């Protein structure tokens, strides 16, 4: 009886398996049929996966849509708030700026919302560069159905300065226009008198004169640098009416204390998910954590984009991203460096290598560590720790610099796709000094400086320190390991412990000044050396302040460099700063990376500008050459 029953069960199993196979085959066949049928007959816009075919090349998938598969996700779509590249990528496709970079060039510009790029020759730069006039182009339609006017331009900059969130990008506008890095430096925003004075300064900084918008700079500022700032997302021009509809500052200037109370440093920006732009693409949908879909703006003043849609997909898992790319379901893909070999020899793809990035990683020495730091051992120079001011001795810093093996590091951590540069000014920026000497891996010299350090006590007694890195950052881990291995090989009394911690822990230790050495990177805001020497060398700079590195002459030079408009004099200043960096060794630049770009071979029109936050879809099309 049981046997019969089981026989029935076996039949049922067989039937289930057959059913599953038939269902799977049916689905596959259905997909195939849907695809091939649409290929031949469908004419509606939202359809086929394959409409273009080639006798020799595979058919192009989604021919009207560019799909980028990457890892980042925008933080916001509010241009005044956005300071990350993922947000910037969306914003610079849906908004426009007064002027924009001329394709690959970092120091040449084309007019967009402005009719002309100002110059002394065309009379639009006056008063030794303190007055800059932008005539505004007529007839630019916005996505919300309005037109861009000089009032929108004035509003965009004033709103950005009013919003000025903590840790946002607006300091770049405040520096040339108001002469400060933050509004708080000008007074108390909740005090009615201070607020009125600051509000008036904002009002006067950008003004309308007929069809022009005039910028009044607070202090001399290199024009090219100012234009680089104006060409980026934080300087996007917003449709004022649209912004007000979304709850942004209504433009009133009667009670500045109230304005600041309501619109300064908000918890969530008003244009968080809004599209108040006039750029070549409109926001179709932002599905958080999944994708941002942009659709072509057919009334775009330079003519509609060549593709109907651009989709930025967040695909965290590399295997999935790779398969999507190889199957042609993604046109452009982000490839982590450790996986580049997996795509070698793949058909139907194209990649460009050795793209210089305007970014550097460096190893920073803290001149005065928190005495309670758990990462300095005993806190004394007794072989079991280091004193808090261990790195205040330049000999120690030089000894560490000579102990670093760049060749091994670049090969292991960057697969050879990075360069060693002498100082904080990246290669490719103006005033980079190619002849500036740089540290080379030399253990004999390292030993020599260790013997000099602390009057010979370091060599005699030895030391123990901990180097932290944030887990997941392989290059930083490798850099720490190289340093450890080389330094410990010099003297058995030298001990370095490497500890991987999560980013929150790393941040806490860094903010509290507990890290004797920290490794961190810097990505350019704008392609000018000031954007690098300030954080790396100025006593109030982002990194130098944590390190407690202070050199009054350096501070003076940096401040002079950003107010000097004469190129030759700027060159002298930045060359001198690079020389001082070499002598002072406040930090050691580990590398300037070289990037890669991967795309399907049917993607046309891409070009590289290292300051772009991502892909500029307006330049792209799909088709075989």
């Amino acid at each position, binding site marked *: *009886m049981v046997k019969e*029953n089981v026989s029935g*069960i076996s039949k049922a199993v067989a039937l289930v398996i057959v059913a599953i196979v038939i269902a799977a085959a049916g689905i596959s066949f259905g997909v195939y049929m849907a695809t091939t049928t649409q290929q031949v007959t469908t004419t509606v816009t939202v359809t086929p996966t394959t409409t273009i075919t080639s006798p020799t090349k595979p058919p192009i998938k*989604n021919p009207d849509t560019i799909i980028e598969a990457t890892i980042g996700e925008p933080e916001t779509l509010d241009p005044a708030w956005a300071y990350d590249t993922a947000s910037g990528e969306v914003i610079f496709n849906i908004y426009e700026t007064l002027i924009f970079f001329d394709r690959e060039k970092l120091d040449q510009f084309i007019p967009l919302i402005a009719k002309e790029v100002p110059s002394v020759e065309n009379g639009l730069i006056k008063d030794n560069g303190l007055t800059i006039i932008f005539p505004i182009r007529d007839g630019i339609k916005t996505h919300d159905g309005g037109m861009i006017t000089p009032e929108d331009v004035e509003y965009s900059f004033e709103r950005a300065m009013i919003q000025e969130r903590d840790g946002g990008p607006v300091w770049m506008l405040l520096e040339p226009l108001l002469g400060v890095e933050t509004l708080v430096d000008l007074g108390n925003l909740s005090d009615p008198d201070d607020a009125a004075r600051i509000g008036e300064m904002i009002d006067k900084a950008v003004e309308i004169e007929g069809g022009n918008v005039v910028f009044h700079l607070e202090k001399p500022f290199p024009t090219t640098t100012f234009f680089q700032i104006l060409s980026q997302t934080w300087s996007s021009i917003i449709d004022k009416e649209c912004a007000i509809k979304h709850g942004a500052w209504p433009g009133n200037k009667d009670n500045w204390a109230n304005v600041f109370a309501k619109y300064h440093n908000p918890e969530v920006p008003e244009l968080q998910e809004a599209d108040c732009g006039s750029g070549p693409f409109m926001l179709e949908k932002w599905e958080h954590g999944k994708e941002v879909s942009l659709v072509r703006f057919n009334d775009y003043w330079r003519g509609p984009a060549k593709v109907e849609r651009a989709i930025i997909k967040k695909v965290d898992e590399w295997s999935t991203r790779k398969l999507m790319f*190889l*199957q042609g379901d993604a046109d452009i893909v982000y490839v982590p460096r450790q996986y580049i070999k997996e795509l070698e020899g793949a058909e139907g793809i194209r990649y460009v290598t050795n793209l210089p990035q305007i970014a550097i990683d460096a190893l920073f020495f803290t001149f005065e560590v928190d005495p309670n730091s758990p990462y300095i051992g005993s806190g004394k120079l007794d072989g079991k720790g280091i004193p808090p001011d261990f790195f205040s001795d330049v000999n120690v810093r030089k000894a560490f610099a000579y102990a670093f093996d760049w060749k091994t590091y670049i090969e292991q951590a960057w697969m050879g796709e990075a360069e060693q540069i002498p100082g904080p000014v990246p290669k490719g920026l103006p005033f980079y000094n190619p002849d500036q000497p740089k540290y080379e891996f030399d253990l004999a010299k390292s030993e020599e400086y260790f013997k000099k350090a602390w009057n010979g006590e370091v060599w005699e007694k030895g030391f123990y320190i901990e180097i932290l890195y944030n887990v997941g950052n392989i290059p930083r881990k490798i850099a720490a390991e190289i340093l450890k291995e080389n330094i410990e090989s010099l003297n058995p009394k030298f001990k370095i412990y490497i500890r991987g911690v999560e980013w929150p822990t790393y*941040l806490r230790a860094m903010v509290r000044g507990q890290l004797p050495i920290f490794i*961190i990177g810097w990505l350019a*805001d704008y392609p000018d050396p000031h954007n690098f020497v300030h954080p790396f060398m100025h006593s109030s700079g*982002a990194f130098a302040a944590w390190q407690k590195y202070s050199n009054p002459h350096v501070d003076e030079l940096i401040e002079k460099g950003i107010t000097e408009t004469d190129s030759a004099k700027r060159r002298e200043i930045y060359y001198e700063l690079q020389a001082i960096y070499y002598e002072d060794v406040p930090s050691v630049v580990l590398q300037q990376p070289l990037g890669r770009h991967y795309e399907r071979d049917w993607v046309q029109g891409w070009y590289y500008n290292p300051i772009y936050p991502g892909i500029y879809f307006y330049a792209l099309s799909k088709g075989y050459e």
Partner: protein
Amino acid sequence: MVIPTLLGISLLIFGVTQLFDPIERASLYIRDPRQIRFVEEIIKKYGLDQPFYVQYFGWLSQVLQGNLGWSQSLHMPVLEALITRFPATAELVLYSAPLTIVLGIFLGKISAVKKDTVIDHVTRVMAIVGWSLPAFWLGIILMAVFYGGFGIFPPGRLSPWAEAMIRSGKFKAYTGLYTIDAILNLNGDVFIDALSHLVLPVITLTTINVALIMRVMRSSMLEQLGKTYIIAARARGLDSKTVIDKHATKNALIPVVTISGLLTAGMLSGMVITETVFEFKGVGYFAAHAATQLDIPAVLGFALFAGLIFVIANLIVDILYAYIDPRIRLR
């Protein structure tokens, strides 16, 4: 029970997060080195240095007003994140949970009936292998074979053309479950497309979870088959099919219902790895993403959501008990 359970969960999670230093919790807002110098302002702005009870009751009062807070890691309100992401998870569960349960019961039953035979051994080994396979590995292998090799069953929930169709206004999203919406819209193309995207994640989930149901069913069935009422039934001359199907199986299902309820609730509150590998981003993916960034409002919101799911699942299990076992109903 619902309210004390949810309050307990929220207190526990909130308490644990307070073990982190305010600077560590502020790291959520610092994505770039240049923002580090604003850490003190950020701590003040978000009240991260306030006493525990001030922060907790501040959050609770917002929750009571229907506001679960803002998720900095997701860049959207927590409630909206749950509402928009849940359909993806629900759609996966809609197909994988019934398949897992039915297959598990079936295999458990056959294994028990054919105890110590080749079929029993093969079924058990296969189930254990499935249970042991890492979801991550299995997902990638399946995708490499079917999607990478044959170009079928792609990742994500829909193809770009189908997504565009849904956004075009010609398609009405009633539930957010694309297969169901496609049926309601009478759109066969979108249905097939959505289904083809579901095949691999559903196979992965079923393969991994079926062993649990199968093992419970097998042991429960063996227990029932050894009981005197089964022997008595056979002695009375009832055929084996009737004894197994009508008597033993029904009684053996009671523990399976409990496990199935918990399994389904667990799946509904997120399947991080499967959702990540197959780009099927539901609540699990978002919960994990938020947790790794110490996004406390989001973590709390998801915890409340998961707690609610489990409470409801328990309620359903209790009702099913009463249906399966009349003694419970009588009590």
